[in-house]
């Protein structure tokens, strides 16, 4: 198994690897393109020719992805922190609880796992890159990387330390492997000293990485 991760893979996507050069097109594209980039456009056009994707479908799908951001997950977490009854409903059914906040996170079940002083949770998808897109948007490159997916299950504390996240030896660390049929979201612990913050202000301190478990929620002053 190579030790490269996906960022290096991304860089490689711009290399020629199939034996013939492409002309540089500096006006429209600084990078040369790969065989697979040509294939991707050809797929779009072929499917469109065959009526399998309609005009406008691609822009709707691009808009869908662009509309999904960690702000929705943060809003859900902030509500959990301020409304114990809501937190309980999140514990029972995240998809239904999200709908209460007018979020459509799709039908794939999402399970919330709540951090406590004794238990820290962290997410991975070792098979591919399953991720709660409906709540967190597009996954970061490192979540897709071999390095993260390989190592977080065997040495989570070491990996978390690479993120600058130190977990006390007293705290159990539990790694949750997502699948295509079941995703997770971490409900981080509410930081001390945030008692006076409004729900909206709380949402601002809930970062994407807090909800993956590679970071802890920090108060505004930190």
């Amino acid at each position, binding site marked *: *198994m*190579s*030790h*490269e*991760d*996906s*960022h290096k*893979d*991304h860089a*490689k*996507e711009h290399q020629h*690897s199939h034996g013939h050069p*492409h002309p540089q*097109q500096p006006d429209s*594209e600084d990078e040369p*393109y*790969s065989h*697979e*980039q*040509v*294939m*991707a*456009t*050809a*797929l*779009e*056009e*072929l*499917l469109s*020719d*065959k009526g*399998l*994707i309609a005009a406008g479908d*691609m822009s709707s*799908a*691009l808009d*869908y*992805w662009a509309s999904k951001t960690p702000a929705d997950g943060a809003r859900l977490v902030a509500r959990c922190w301020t409304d114990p009854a809501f937190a309980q409903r999140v514990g029972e059914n995240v998809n239904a609880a999200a709908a209460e906040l007018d979020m459509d996170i*799709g039908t794939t079940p999402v399970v919330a796992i709540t951090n406590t002083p004794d238990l820290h949770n962290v997410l*991975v998808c*070792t*098979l591919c*890159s399953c991720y709660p897109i409906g709540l967190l948007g*597009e996954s*970061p*490159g*490192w979540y*897709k*990387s*071999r*390095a*993260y997916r*390989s*190592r977080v*299950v*065997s040495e989570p504390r070491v990996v978390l330390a*690479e*993120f600058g996240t130190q977990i006390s030896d007293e705290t159990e660390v539990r790694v949750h*492997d997502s699948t*295509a049929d079941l995703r997770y979201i971490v409900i981080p612990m509410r930081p001390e000293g945030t008692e006076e913050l409004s729900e909206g202000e709380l949402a601002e301190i809930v970062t994407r990485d807090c909800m993956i478990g590679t970071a802890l929620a920090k108060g505004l002053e930190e």
Partner: protein
Amino acid sequence: MGGLEAGPVDLTEAAYAPWQKRVKALALLLIRGDKAQMNVDELRRGIEDLAPEDYERLGYYERWTRSIADILTEKGLFTAEELTVKMAEVEKRWQEQGPK
């Protein structure tokens, strides 16, 4: 992959290139759209069926592209020849006008 040895995690937050976003959008349409043609397990199987040297060489969304092409060809939505012809058209256009 879980449990294998690997180097440090590269925490760079890279923005996705437009073509990568389009592959992702295409996958969404093919998996969840009104005219869905495949499912996410098939996408993953197509990735895992890549030759090991291709898997190593290709980037993340390049693997997705190859998987989608292989799975849809397998399902008979188009032939490998049709894809080859279309790719030649796209490449010729890009050589003349640059990638869109």
